[in-house]
């Protein structure tokens, strides 16, 4: 069992989240954006697990399970959307999908 202060796993979660965010903002390819979103979701899940460990309660892990469900749904719809965008725009460039510009 871990004996370090829980600050450290929380720091790991924040670091992963920031990396995912950076990925979303940097990458122009839809597939990579989706991957970065997965990273962010995973980081959030990690924070919940830390909380579960801190209090010795199962609720945090339940939340992790729900995040998993969310991630699965998001990937399913996201991938289908990517297929459609690819079909419509013949590219995966996120900046090319700007029909909603003002």
């Amino acid at each position, binding site marked *: 069992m871990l004996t370090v202060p829980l600050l450290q796993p929380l720091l790991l979660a924040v670091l992963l989240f920031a*990396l995912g965010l950076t990925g979303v903002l940097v990458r122009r390819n839809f597939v990579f954006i989706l991957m970065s979103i997965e990273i962010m979701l995973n980081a959030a899940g990690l924070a919940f697990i830390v909380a*579960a460990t801190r209090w010795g309660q199962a609720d945090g892990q339940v939340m992790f399970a729900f995040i998993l469900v969310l991630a699965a749904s998001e990937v399913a719809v996201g991938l*289908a959307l990517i297929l459609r965008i690819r079909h419509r725009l013949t590219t995966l460039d996120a900046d090319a999908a700007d029909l909603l510009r003002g």
Partner: protein
Amino acid sequence: MNDAFYVASGIAVLSTALAITRANGVHALLYLVISLLAVALVFYTLGAAFAAALEVIVYAGAIIVLMVFLVMMLNLGGAAAARETQWMKPRVWIGPAILGIVLEAEIVSILARGDAGVPSLAVILPRDVGIAMFGPYLLCVELASMLLLAALAGAYRLAYLERAEG
């Protein structure tokens, strides 16, 4: 146990950083799998064995496999990788990196103010998780099932049209 945590954390951060910088889609996904497995290990060290198993099976297994299929289907080969490299000039990193670092700094400053505490000695068994999930969180489980159903229908519909138009 603590050593395992530090090593796994290091691997997770490193492989994640590599995953978001790779030009080749398959390479990135492989780094992502490594990152997820490392996080699963972190879960294990935190005493969440059940969550660690779910992480491996659902994330590293199902979700990433799905994405690998997609990358293969879209045929992101050498040309796509070259374009990715072209898109990832150092200049485009500046803004997002600053945002990420500021976020990091802010949350760390919040965390540093309080005491995050130490792990409780109580062991959370998969049984406890199951009891909580089908007890007080039953409604959420139902909602999650509906979400999955909606995602299924949505994905099917979008993909179906894809085929019809093609």
